[in-house]
């Protein structure tokens, strides 16, 4: 293949006039699907709004805070997670079958999907780019301690590290350890300190230094 020929074809090897710029391509596709009556723009707007504003990691944070506050709830969350999560009004798409794994002083859990991007949407929302990226998916199973180090967590050698690869339709939520310095906190205060990364297992929740937030 000579240089000129290669240049003529640019990146587009499927011999179509569909733009390779994804923004233009998606715009053209949406127009087509609306014109054909296959897609309703308002439904697309509602889907985007749902996952941009209504469903996200604050849901999971409330689940975790409830588990820290109420030992009976925590038991239900670990033994029947779908029902326990539904008690708080969450559940559904990409979280139909939940598993909750608990961090303890001797066990740390880490969640990955090596094959695609499986993630518990009802409690954590849509996954961050790094979770879906090749670097995370490739190394979380072979070098999980190295991954944790990149996130700033040096895991003690004696701690048992459990990596959960979401290869089926089970979706995993890590129940982090309650941080020191939160004695007597209300559930809403506790939820404020729960991070998305701690519920994936790439971070711990740092001890609280300055007492309860105002």
């Amino acid at each position, binding site marked *: 293949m000579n240089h000129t020929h290669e240049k003529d074809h640019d990146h587009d090897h499927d011999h179509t006039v569909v733009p390779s710029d994804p923004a233009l391509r998606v715009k053209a596709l949406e127009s087509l699907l609306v014109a054909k009556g296959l897609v309703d723009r308002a439904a697309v707007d509602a889907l985007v709004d749902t996952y941009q504003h209504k469903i996200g990691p604050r849901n999971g944070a409330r689940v975790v805070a409830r588990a820290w506050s109420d030992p009976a709830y925590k038991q239900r969350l670990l033994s029947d997670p779908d029902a326990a999560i539904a008690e708080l009004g969450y559940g559904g798409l990409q979280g139909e079958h939940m598993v909750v794994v608990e961090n303890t002083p001797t066990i740390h859990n880490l969640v990955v999907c090596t094959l695609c991007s499986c993630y518990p949407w009802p409690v954590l929302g849509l996954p961050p780019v790094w979770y879906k990226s090749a670097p995370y998916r490739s190394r979380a199973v072979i070098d999980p301690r190295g991954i944790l180090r990149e996130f700033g967590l040096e895991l003690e050698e004696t701690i048992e590290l459990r990596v959960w690869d979401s290869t*089926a339709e089970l979706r995993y939520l890590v129940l982090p350890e309650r941080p020191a310095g939160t004695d007597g906190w209300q559930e809403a205060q506790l939820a404020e300190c729960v991070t998305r990364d701690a519920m994936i297992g790439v971070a711990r929740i740092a001890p609280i230094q300055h007492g309860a937030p105002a």
Partner: protein
Amino acid sequence: MNGVHDLGGMHGLGPIQEENNEPVFHAKWEERAFGITRAMGTWQLWNLDASRFQRELIAPVDYLRWSYYERWIRALEELMLKTHLVSRAELDTGRPDAGSTIHAPKLTAENVSVLASKGSPAKRDVPVTASFGVGQSVRARNINPVGHTRLPRYVRGKVGTIDRDHGVFVFPDTNALFLGEKPQHVYSVRFAARELWGAAASPHDSVYVDLWDDYLEPV
């Protein structure tokens, strides 16, 4: 298929790139790509496993260089072509072919909250005998299907222990090809890191992988 999507255990793909205060979407087109893909799924002309398989069929070099939602949109186009929802000419021109059927959208804005809150469970309430019990040693089969599979390469031929039985689920290998749901037990199988990666791995580490009955054999 032994595709580039099966990334577990690979080296050389670079550092994790974390973004502080990351937005849910990084561009307007990502929002639309997400919404269109979910909306088109409600026509039920394909299923989740078929969608995953279509993304796995993207050429390896493109799979790695395209962004996440670009892969979604390319796979969606292929699924719509295969199911004759759109023609190649329509994708090229962005306009319906003369005389083509005009449908009424399946998903309306009013149904979105139901779609999100109901989901589409993959668990099946049918009596199927479990081949393995909790605590049993099993070997992940050394198989190399050319179609869709959720048996990652890094566990094939390796020995693990059944940690729990999740119940009966749709089998992706057949479902992705529209060959039936073939419901069967899914287990969480615990593999010691040293079984997977050798003596250099930490003796305290393990990987739990959710595997279907057909992926396993007794030791």
